[in-house]
């Protein structure tokens, strides 16, 4: 076994260079709540850890173009304590609040939740419905990528060797918009989603839904962005008929597996039930957040 090395560079460029030139397995260490557990349980044996928490720009939430830029090393608790962010994107925060215990959220980051590559990650569906765009810095170039394009399969992302998520951009909120995320778990806390649903919608002055994004978690190898679900809402007042169509579309979009936490049949049914609930919650928020 070769020795595990630790680096805590002060710039993103230096971090990307360290990752790019490493021959063995190199891991980014942000919150560490997945990486350290994977090391402890011998799932991975990295040779290099690159701690990105000393890179100042990665630690900040800043206002940008009426929206927010969230640095990749910002912890869940820091997001939960940011009043303006919570007010603007309550659905994103629904997801963040469900990531583990207070202790875990003190360290864990949304970037880590995404890069860990689990289809059950709680913060990923609401980040996708929010239209979040990741800024990815690599040794050669910087690219902007919508969050939904990052997960490829369980544990795999489209980040190349040497690339690091620098931040996420959450756009300015149109008027009368609301988002929400809920998941089903056997326990109330400290559990992994059996099904998760995020919805972000915008209403016009008459209360008609003009735009919607719907994302399902834990019911396929990656999170699913469902156009059919969104279509069930757009043009309606999100009434019973629209909710029925949404629920049917959500169940139809599922491609789940059977496992100890839920059967295919159960997950398919619950996706519809949750979609309906989450739509109602997003609707209430859209009416409240003028």
């Amino acid at each position, binding site marked *: 076994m070769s020795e*595990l090395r*630790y680096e805590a560079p002060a710039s993103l460029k230096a971090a990307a260079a360290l990752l790019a030139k490493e021959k063995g397995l190199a891991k980014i260490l942000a919150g*560490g*709540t997945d990486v*350290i557990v994977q090391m*402890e349980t011998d799932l991975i044996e990295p040779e290099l850890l690159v701690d990105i928490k000393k890179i100042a720009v990665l630690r900040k939430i800043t206002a940008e173009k009426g929206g927010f830029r969230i640095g990749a090393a910002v912890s869940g608790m820091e997001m939960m304590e940011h009043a303006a962010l919570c007010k603007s994107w309550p659905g994103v925060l629904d997801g963040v609040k469900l990531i583990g215990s*207070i202790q875990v959220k003190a360290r864990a980051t949304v970037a880590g939740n995404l890069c860990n590559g689990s289809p059950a990650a709680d913060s990923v569906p609401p980040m996708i419905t929010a239209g979040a765009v990741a800024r990815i810095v690599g040794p050669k170039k910087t690219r902007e990528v919508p969050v939904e394009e990052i997960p490829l399969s369980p544990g795999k992302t489209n980040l190349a060797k040497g690339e690091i998520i620098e931040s996420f951009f959450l756009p300015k909120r149109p008027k009368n918009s609301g988002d929400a995320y809920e998941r089903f778990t056997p326990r109330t806390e400290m559990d992994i989603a059996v099904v998760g649903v995020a919805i972000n919608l915008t209403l016009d002055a008459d209360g008609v839904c003009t735009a919607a994004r719907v994302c399902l978690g834990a019911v396929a190898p990656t999170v699913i962005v469902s156009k059919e679900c969104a279509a069930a809402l757009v043009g309606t007042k999100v009434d019973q008929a629209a909710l029925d169509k949404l629920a049917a579309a959500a169940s139809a979009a599922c491609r789940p597996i059977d496992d100890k936490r839920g059967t295919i049949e159960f997950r398919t049914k619950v996706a519809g039930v949750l979609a309906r609930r989450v739509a109602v919650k997003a609707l209430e928020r859209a009416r409240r957040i003028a």
Partner: protein
Amino acid sequence: MSKKHHLAMNVNGDDYEFLCETHQSLLDVLRDELMLTGTKEGCATGDCGACSVTLDGRLACSCLVLAVECEGAKIGTIEGMARGDVLHPLQRNFLELNGLQCGICTPGILIAARSLLERNPDPSETEIRYWLAGNLCRCTGYDKIIRSVQAAAKEMRGA
């Protein structure tokens, strides 16, 4: 393997310098290098909360933090909770109201509860239960833990 990092951190107001390896967690260092064994290990994977400490004022699992990440950090552990022989109100109420049985979860729960009361001196039962959701207890059934925290909170508010 040689210990290759020379680090300094402050634990409960005292400065420490120590040597450690990259893979050693903050929990490992507290217990094995600094001999502060009040912080317990239940799982080493972030599930049980027995290893809870404060890290620069924030409640965290010391098993989920590498010691090398803590250069210059301020750590709070159970050893810093009582003032000499005078127990913290949380500690006293846990004793009086049987908030512990075997006691292995207790240091972590006390640290977590103190961190809650610093932020919210008058939490509801639901808020206490959610805040402590990351601290498992095999013995008490939790109810007496909640009562002990409520009693300590009340006392600390001077109510």
